[in-house]
């Protein structure tokens, strides 16, 4: 005897599709992003309309925080190794292998050269508390910034793609920036890159009009 069966609706939902979406997003984020680089100080860069990307490699970067402390960083472990060996022998710092390794794998460094040994002996977390993190001096009496630039340049070995970047905070006082620019000028380095974040071009201005104008013009060429 046929009996009419009422189909009871299940409350469980098929999660397979959602799972697919979740892992698709996960894969996207893993591939499209990279880990935030370790920074000793947080720096909020000003924004500009420039769209030129900061290159990943061949960069000597000087980070300047709100108080005007300068930190040095450079990519490439072999280059960092050469640089710290040069600094060690030139200034007779007496760094051991462990301290040098700290420099090679570590993030930015910002201290006076005479404190470099004590600074590198510490772990990154301890440096902040130690009070040695005073930044690289750049005043004309004791301009260690030019020393760092020189040694970094030597370690890069005449790399033609080498770029000097300055990443300074919104609140960095201008005289500090002037000092840095003067240091680079004295070293006959005329081209600097200022790290900025992106901002949209204000509508109606010359740059906006030029941008709108170049798009079709390029096509006709």
């Amino acid at each position: 005897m046929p009996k009419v069966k009422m189909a009871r609706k299940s409350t469980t939902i098929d999660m397979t599709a959602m799972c697919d979406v979740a892992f698709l997003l996960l894969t996207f984020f893993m591939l499209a992003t990279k880990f935030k680089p370790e920074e000793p100080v947080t720096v909020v860069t000003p924004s500009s309309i420039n769209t030129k990307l900061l290159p990943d490699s061949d960069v000597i970067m000087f980070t300047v925080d709100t108080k005007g402390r300068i930190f040095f960083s450079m990519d490439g472990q072999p280059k960092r190794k050469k640089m710290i060996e040069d600094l060690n022998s030139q200034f007779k710092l007496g760094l051991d292998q462990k301290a040098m390794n700290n420099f090679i794998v570590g993030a930015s460094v910002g201290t006076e050269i005479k404190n470099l040994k004590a600074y590198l002996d510490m772990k990154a977390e301890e440096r902040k508390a130690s009070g040695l993190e005073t930044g690289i001096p750049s005043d004309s009496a004791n301009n260690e910034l030019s020393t760092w630039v020189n040694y970094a340049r030597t370690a890069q070995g005449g790399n033609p793609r080498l770029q000097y970047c300055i990443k300074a905070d919104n609140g960095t006082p201008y005289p500090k920036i002037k000092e840095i620019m003067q240091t680079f000028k004295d070293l006959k380095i005329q081209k600097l890159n200022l790290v900025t974040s992106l901002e949209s071009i204000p509508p109606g201005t010359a740059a906006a009009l030029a941008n709108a104008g170049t798009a079709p013009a390029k096509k006709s060429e």
Partner: protein
Amino acid sequence: MAEMDTSSSGAGKKHQGTKSKKLSTRVDMTPMVDLGFLLITFFMLTTTMSKPKTMDLIMPKDTKDEKEQNKVKESTALTILLGKNNRVYYYAGLAQDPNASANPDFFKATSFANKNGIRDVLIKKRDEVAQLRNAKGEPEDVVVIIKANDDATYKNFVDILDEMAINRIQRYAAVDISDQDKQWIRQTETANTGGAQ
């Protein structure tokens, strides 16, 4: 939460008592989804998406040689001073004449605001100068002299360089501030605070 979907076999159980229970092949995906979203959250928080951009800054060579130095005409120049609290001061020309400030309209203050700020001043000056003709009969280019006072911040400096890019001003230079300029800024500041009180 973690249960098998057995709803189809449950309804007719009384009549199918002898039948062996059919095991469902469906697996509960909820924990896996949880894990997936947890990892997404982790990656979103620990990674950077937008790469920083850079602004090229090409500095002039320091030259003592008079012949190599560029001369700027008084009529095509606009001097911009950066003061504290994001204030911007400007005047036309190079102020080689120290008595120029006798004219109350000479030294003016403005801001980085999008409307009625330094941008409008730059656009006005640029278009004015474009009307002028040089000795060869070509349109003149405005030359912007940027002088930042000691209490200006890096943001002000980048902002003003950005204004040059926004307004497509090709010729500009960052120059050290003179004592005369500093004095004018101080005078304007005291005049402004005095007026407000």
